[in-house]
């Protein structure tokens, strides 16, 4: 897949510590517009922490982080030219492993809540946009349903629509299918694939190696808080260089 040379997110020497435990040990990363970056690696290697730093769900302890050339500040309302957590999160959407839908709100209210409270959108245009998004994820008939009455795959598709409602420029996915029954994985991946084909800039943590190979423009292998190897899906998944990556991949081909 092609992408432009415009760098949306730039990380230099990014570090994250939890107490004394250093989980990210100096990450350098350039994410280009339209790029689909897949992050793989063993459990505990820091994949979730990395992706959560990208919308300040976790606050990095050191290093530099810029979004479209503007320095990212952990303050919710940072003064320009810096970009604060509030603005960053409006422009960087996130989809969680466990969906985290709002159980007290209907599907359509789950989607419009963000735009209405954060952007101050009126109900009518917010709902019209939400219906478009529900069409896209194939759940227009569930607009008035409550999350408790949806399957896991449907919940995750609503969660994707909820994130898209703020018209983000980047989407982050942290293992979006690993909480799903196997037969429900396909419907969610289809939505993610369509987003990728539509040119959305994305970072996707996944254990679905086949899917990563398929949609990613670049694959990043993390190990022990560092980027151990990166390259095209073919290079990383079919022609791994390091023994660690070979060992890691062997477990998926078994």
């Amino acid at each position: 897949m092609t992408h432009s040379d415009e760098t949306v997110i730039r990380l230099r020497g990014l570090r994250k510590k939890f107490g004394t435990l250093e989980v990210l040990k100096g990450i350098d990363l350039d994410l280009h517009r339209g790029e689909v970056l897949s992050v793989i690696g063993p459990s505990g290697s820091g994949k979730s922490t990395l992706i959560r730093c990208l919308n300040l769900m976790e606050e990095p302890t050191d290093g530099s982080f810029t979004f479209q050339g503007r320095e990212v500040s952990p303050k919710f309302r940072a003064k320009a030219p810096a970009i604060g957590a509030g603005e960053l999160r409006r422009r960087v959407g996130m989809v969680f492993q466990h969906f985290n839908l709002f159980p007290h709100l209907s599907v359509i209210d789950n989607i419009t809540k963000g735009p209405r409270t954060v952007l101050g959108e009126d109900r009518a245009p917010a709902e019209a946009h939400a219906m478009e998004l529900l069409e896209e994820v194939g759940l227009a008939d569930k607009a008035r349903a409550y999350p408790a009455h949806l399957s896991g795959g449907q919940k995750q598709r609503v969660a994707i629509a909820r994130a898209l409602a703020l018209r983000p420029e980047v989407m982050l996915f942290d293992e979006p299918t690993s909480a799903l029954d196997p037969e429900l994985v396909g419907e969610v991946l289809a939505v993610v694939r369509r987003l990728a084909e539509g040119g959305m800039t994305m970072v996707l943590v996944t254990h679905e190696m086949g899917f990563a190979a398929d949609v990613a423009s670049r694959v990043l292998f993390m190990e022990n808080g560092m980027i151990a190897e990166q390259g095209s899906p073919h290079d990383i998944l079919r022609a791994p260089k390091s023994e660690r990556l070979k060992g890691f991949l062997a477990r998926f081909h078994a």
Partner: protein
Amino acid sequence: MYHWDFYTVLQSFDLFLMGIWTTFLYTIGSISIGVVVGLAACFARLSHRAPVRLLARSYQELFRCTPLLVQILWAYYALPMILGISISNTAAGLLMLSLYVGSFYAEIFRGGILAIDKGQSEAAHAVGMSGVQAMRHIILPQAVKKMLPAFINQSVVQVKNTSLLYAISIAELTYMTSVVNSETYRPLEAYSLAAVLYFVMLFPLTQVADYFERRMRRSD
């Protein structure tokens, strides 16, 4: 064989009604103030600042670990000596009832908020909501459902606790019953009637609490 004579007591039923009205006013007043105080203490305890947390915690423990009757007597007889001003029994009673129930409400509110999964506030933040917006639109609406049964139960206790105002001569139901008693010399009938009146007021409330509790368990 004791000769029951409710007729004499019932002739003073207007006194009972006045007592019920006063009990009602103190209950509503102290619950309203208590909710505000409880919310403040609850958010103070969830604060990032340690001194704020400590202050709220100290208030809570002070009021939860001393008897309400002592608090009321202290506010009426001791506090004026410290402040050098006179405090009416209304002010002393309302103040202590409110602070007392507020300390329990704070714990109920806090429990309800902490019971909401962390993923909820993360999802709210992920769509750009501030902490206050996430609390108002996402966390509180869910937490209120969880705290409702405990809140109603504590409020039932609060109605009963107004009877302690008797000790500083506030004319609530228990006090008025003692007035009827001293006029009629019919303690058995007077206090039995008072008990029945309290029961009639509170039984429906406990049923409402049970209803919410059952409904909550079903939706989990």
